[in-house]
């Protein structure tokens, strides 16, 4: 059945489609349809929706002659959405099962998680891209919930996965996840410091990489790319100019993982991921804080940042969302002395307002042991992101 629509006055702005086809007879709100762009017109595009021909306005840059899944959001004045994220939080299992049926792909648990990631990354569900991604992940033997998968999603959707580029990148640079690379940087840093290194090198490492509250060396909290490159250079010079050194293995290991840290960060930042590692002097040991910051672009152009800083080896973390100069954050911790902590939070809020004009609302969740509460908080943050 073919339906030609010539009146395009009432078209929705975003992925809106002409309303003269009486679509409410054959479509249901919330259902998933298969769309295919046939031809770009002067105004609008010819598109097949579940096999019926329409002329539509689609703002998203979607390739021609590709099968794409869309969500029916309104049937009387037919509107479709390419964003499934809200639906994902309403009924994840049902949505993912329906998508797999529509794609004619037999799902398993891993594919479920990967599809969930594609939706959370706000990528249009283009069938050929999804299949290409599934094949690549199978060939590269990656874990479903890793940063490599997220990187691969961006590479595939940006047409950078052809000519073995994505395979080479993952195989040679991202075979070990960023978090593991950070662990190795932390571990080899400790090993070098504890295996007798000249004082000038130890000082360079501690000054640039390990934050010490007594010295307030904030360089160790900031972007450490430059610092690590300089330390690699110092260690290389030291290693090359001596015939025998007892900690050569540790030095080589730091150079290897430090290089991976720098290169992985450069690539990940291109896709709006800002992960990092912070080392902190903690009594006689070195504590680690994992940083995850992800930027999301919104249709109105205002970016949103999802933030997570997690103290390793301690039940202490902050999850937050920054949007329109407002940071809403929640600290999960077992805290007894909350009066002092509240003062610290207040000081932090004042500094953020003074330095970068960001208003802040940071709360404390004492029930860190309560997994349900943690899960709930995470969901709230996810909803805010969407």
């Amino acid at each position, binding site marked *: 059945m073919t339906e030609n629509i010539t009146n395009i006055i009432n078209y929705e702005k975003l992925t809106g489609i002409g309303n003269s086809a009486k679509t409410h007879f054959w479509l249901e709100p919330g259902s998933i349809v298969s769309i295919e762009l046939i031809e770009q017109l002067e105004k609008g595009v010819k598109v097949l929706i579940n096999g019926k021909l329409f002329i539509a306005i689609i703002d998203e840059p979607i390739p021609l002659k590709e099968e794409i899944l869309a969500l029916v959001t309104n049937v009387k004045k037919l509107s479709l959405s390419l964003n499934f994220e809200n639906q994902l939080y309403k009924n994840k299992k049902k949505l993912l099962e329906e998508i797999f049926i529509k794609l004619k792909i037999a799902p398993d648990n891993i594919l479920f998680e990967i599809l969930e990631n594609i939706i959370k990354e706000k990528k249009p569900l283009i069938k050929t891209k999804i299949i290409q991604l599934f094949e690549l992940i199978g060939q590269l033997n990656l874990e479903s919930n890793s940063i490599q998968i997220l990187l691969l999603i961006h590479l595939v959707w940006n047409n950078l996965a052809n000519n073995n580029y994505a395979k080479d990148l993952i195989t040679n640079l991202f075979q070990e996840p960023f978090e593991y690379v950070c662990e190795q940087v932390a571990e080899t840093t400790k090993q070098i410091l504890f295996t007798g290194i000249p004082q000038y090198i130890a000082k360079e490492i501690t000054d640039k990489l390990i934050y010490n509250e007594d010295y307030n060396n904030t360089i160790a909290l900031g972007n450490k790319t430059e610092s690590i490159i300089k330390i690699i250079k110092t260690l290389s010079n030291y290693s090359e100019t001596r015939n025998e050194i007892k900690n050569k293995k540790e030095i080589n290991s730091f150079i*290897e993982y430090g290089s991976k840290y720098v*290169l992985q960060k450069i690539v990940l930042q291109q896709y709006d991921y*800002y992960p990092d590692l912070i080392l902190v002097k903690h009594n006689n040991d070195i504590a680690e*804080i994992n940083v995850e910051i992800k930027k999301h672009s919104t249709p109105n152009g205002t970016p949103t940042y999802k933030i997570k800083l997690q103290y390793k080896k301690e039940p202490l973390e902050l999850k937050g969302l920054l949007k329109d100069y407002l940071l809403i954050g929640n600290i999960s911790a077992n805290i007894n*002395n909350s009066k002092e902590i509240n003062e610290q939070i207040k000081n*932090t809020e004042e*500094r953020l307002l003074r*330095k970068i004009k960001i208003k802040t609302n940071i709360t404390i969740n004492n029930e860190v042991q309560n997994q349900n509460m943690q899960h709930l908080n995470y969901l709230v943050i996810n909803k805010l992101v969407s």
Partner: protein
Amino acid sequence: MKKLLEIAYEKKILKEKNKLIEKLIEKNKQEEKTIETLKNEIAKLLINISQKRN
């Protein structure tokens, strides 16, 4: 380091390096400052909380 970079170069990983770095530099400076400041301040807060707890 040298060996790793050679491998990376051979595999064309670094082919896009200059482009990527240029793009990075072009990114809005204010945005980078925001992210860095935010990260530093929150990290300091967590460090303080950790020390108070111990």
